[in-house]
């Protein structure tokens, strides 16, 4: 090894620089901010294109409805704040954005329990369920900063509404050789024939760790990064079910209403196989470092490994 691994980075860091690049390339972007642009990285856009950056203060409902008005004149509008505050504007996202199918991307940073020290009120464990309930919305959670930039670009270049959850914590770069993100498609991270481990966001790295651990026990695990949650890549799910016969879904979200529930529904009609789930089990979080909170909430490689063993044991 001559090259060193890239420094850890947070998926939220991709937003501002990517929007600047895309505007420079000639896209018609407008950015709306609710007093958290420094944290979401959107505020960097203001330095380059101040006339295209609108502040709305701490008023998410007004911001989202105004973004809808802006979008009707043709711009691709990016709205950002923290994931928990995105939910503050659910009605506006539903009526003013989803129903008219407007060209708006909500980039919500500090997603998941890895918001960490700020505690339970700041930890969004329900945003994937909430945003997946909106017809027309594409829901994406990138696994690293490289994929995050690719997701932002895809949203900017694709009509219609998007929700992109980014994270506060600096985590490993998984796509140092470039993104492999394709909207609506699961990304294979590792091949295997005994069980498929499916995750998104910060859980992808922990899932890869679990697969390594399982290999040591003779269990050959396939790993899929399901960065696009809506629309769900049902074909990849079915292929995984048919080819490996068991599935584990691991996610930084409430277990009963996230990707696991959606995947189980899809597979129930396509090709049912034993499934196990790792996620937040009907509780709220607490303060701590991001990795401490992930651990105490059970979002660990060990839990994924245990779930994989159970799933494999249930195979007929």
């Amino acid at each position, binding site marked *: 090894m001559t090259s060193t691994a890239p420094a850890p980075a947070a998926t939220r860091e991709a937003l501002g620089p990517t929007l600047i690049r895309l505007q420079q390339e000639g896209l018609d972007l*407008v950015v709306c901010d609710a007093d958290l642009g420094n944290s979401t990285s959107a505020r960097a856009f203001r330095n380059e294109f101040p*006339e*295209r950056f*609108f502040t*709305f*203060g701490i*008023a998410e*409902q*007004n*911001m*989202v*409805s*105004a*973004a*809808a*008005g*802006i*979008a*009707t*004149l*043709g*711009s691709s509008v990016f709205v950002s704040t923290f994931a928990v505050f995105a939910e503050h504007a659910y*009605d*506006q996202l539903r*009526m*003013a954005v989803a*129903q*008219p199918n407007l060209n708006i991307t909500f980039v919500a940073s500090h997603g998941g329990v890895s918001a960490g020290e700020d505690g339970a009120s700041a930890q969004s464990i329900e945003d994937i369920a909430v945003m997946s309930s909106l017809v027309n919305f594409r829901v994406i959670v990138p696994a690293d900063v490289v994929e995050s930039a690719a997701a932002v670009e895809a949203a900017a270049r694709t009509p219609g509404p998007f929700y992109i959850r980014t994270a506060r914590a600096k985590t490993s770069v998984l796509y140092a050789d470039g993104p492999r993100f394709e909207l609506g498609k699961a990304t294979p991270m590792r091949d295997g024939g005994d069980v498929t481990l499916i995750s998104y966001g910060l859980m992808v790295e922990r899932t890869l760790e679990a697969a390594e651990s399982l290999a040591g026990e003779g269990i050959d695990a396939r790993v899929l990064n399901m960065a696009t949650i809506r629309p769900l890549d049902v074909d990849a799910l079915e292929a995984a079910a048919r080819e490996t016969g068991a599935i584990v879904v691991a996610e930084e979200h409430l277990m009963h209403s996230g990707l696991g529930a959606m995947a189980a529904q899809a597979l129930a009609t396509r090709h049912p196989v034993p499934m196990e789930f790792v996620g937040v089990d009907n509780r709220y979080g607490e303060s701590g470092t991001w990795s401490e909170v992930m651990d105490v909430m059970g979002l660990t490689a060990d839990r994924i490994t245990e779930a994989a063993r159970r799933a494999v044991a249930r195979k007929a």
Partner: protein
Amino acid sequence: MSTIPESGWGTPVVTETQPDLSARARRIRRHIVQMVYEVKSGHPGGSLSATDILTVLYSNLLKHDPQRPDWPERDRFVMSKGHCTPAQYATLAEFGYFDVEELATFRRLGTRLQGHSVLGSPQGVENTAGSLGMGLSFGLGIRLAARLKGLDNHVYVMMGDGEQDEGQVWEAAMASAHHSIDGLVALVDRNGIQNDDFTAATMSTEPLDEKYRAFGWDVRSSVDGHDLAAVEQALIWARDVRGGPACVIFDTVKGKGVSFMENNPTFHGAPPSDEQFELAMSELADD
């Protein structure tokens, strides 16, 4: 032709004289009552209170072209009180956005004339509404984008007085003044009644004019929303306010023009009976 001075903001609109406006308003009122009567649902009260404002706006102020509803430089009318679609559709039909006959499909399966406003259905409807309190924000967004793109247009947002209960209205009011956005005109149809009861009994919003002024708006209040000349004068004033947003608070009568609906909370969202329909249409007949 009326003597409306040309706005410095664009081409003059074709203006109509007051007798024509009165007849047009009566036609719109008849459409409203008939639409709600035939489908046995809808919101006549707030539609009738808004009719004269809409009639003057579309006739003499709004820069629009029914033959080119997607004209980029057009003014926008945003119906924030999205349950008042009978007034909105009847006005659009009167101006030729679609055939008057289509009004008979209101609220029926497969219609373009949905119960609450849907953006682009048909063209001329500029926003999706129904959940109250969002239209002023939407109008602000249109003006922000228009300013960015160098478009010289106006956005007129119609709200109810009950709608002023919604906190988002005040988020939008604050932001509009913060951004010194002009060309944004709030039209408050203060008919004094909301869904369940009189607004004064439900939630006190007064003094509304002082609230908008405190939020940084230029305000004209207590304009008689059924005096066509007064409506026109107030709209011209609002159109020409520069440097910030303008608000006109119209005093109106819910159910205006139909005796038994006037100032009667029952007809916020209820159709007339057969006998009531006959009476209403006779009251709204031309002479």
